[in-house]
């Protein structure tokens, strides 16, 4: 019995180690036609979640074409970062809404 327990414990630890520890979710709020934070940092593999608190529809659209996430009023949307680099993005409907994502490898 003790042997089986420790085997299970070892298995649990191994499974836990297999999940990359650094994959995080970065939250960016859109409120009153502004993105906050305007400058965010993340790593490849992280998820960016844009939370639209406005009654207007927005988008998070990368200038380089990497992503184009639709954000209906009062809804949120996500994108998993695949490439490193600095990406400027904006809202297609309100081109004055701009922000930057720094993505590290």
């Amino acid at each position: 019995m003790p042997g089986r327990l420790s085997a299970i414990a070892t298995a649990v630890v191994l499974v836990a180690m297999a999940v990359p520890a650094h994959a995080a979710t970065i939250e960016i709020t859109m409120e009153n036609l502004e993105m906050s934070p305007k400058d965010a940092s993340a790593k490849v593999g992280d998820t960016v979640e844009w939370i639209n608190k406005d009654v207007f529809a927005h988008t998070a659209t990368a200038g380089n074409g990497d992503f184009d996430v639709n954000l209906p009023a009062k809804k949120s949307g996500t994108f998993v970062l695949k490439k490193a680099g600095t990406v400027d993005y904006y809202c297609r409907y309100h081109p004055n809404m701009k922000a930057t994502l720094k993505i590290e490898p």
Partner: protein
Amino acid sequence: MFVRWSAAIAAAILLSSPALLQGARAADKPTDPQIAHIAYTAGVIDINAAKQAQKKAKNKDVKAFAEDMLRDHEAVNKQALALVKKLNVTPEDNDTSKALSKQASDKLAELGKLDGAAFDKAYVANEVAYHKAVNGALETQLIPSANNAELKSLLQTGLKIFQAHQQHAEHVAAELK
């Protein structure tokens, strides 16, 4: 254009003052039910202009801009309707709303005679002027006069989005040149 619109709004507000004198409040201040009506009317005007542009515009940026106007102004007006319902306020027609509607229907008729690039240019130029005029009215008249905090807050949201529209329209206008 800006001067003409502002003058029209100012004249309309002056004309409406005898009616307001009957109230206990300052003569030049519209009441909340009137403000709600003016704001809603201003939204409807831009929605109608956008619908006309969707049919007539040729340039893809102008078409996209018209779609943006339709989406945002419908969203604001939906909020406005929900708020007046919640507050149990009946929007009250007034001379400012009437003057705005009259100007707008004249403009629709004027733009209706244009086609192609001429329409695109005239529509966007009017959008710049119209948003400027409405923003001026919101800042100097409607927001300061609003009594109810929720109405004031909605007008402030409206101002924020209308300012964004004005900048967007100015950008599209510059691209058309």
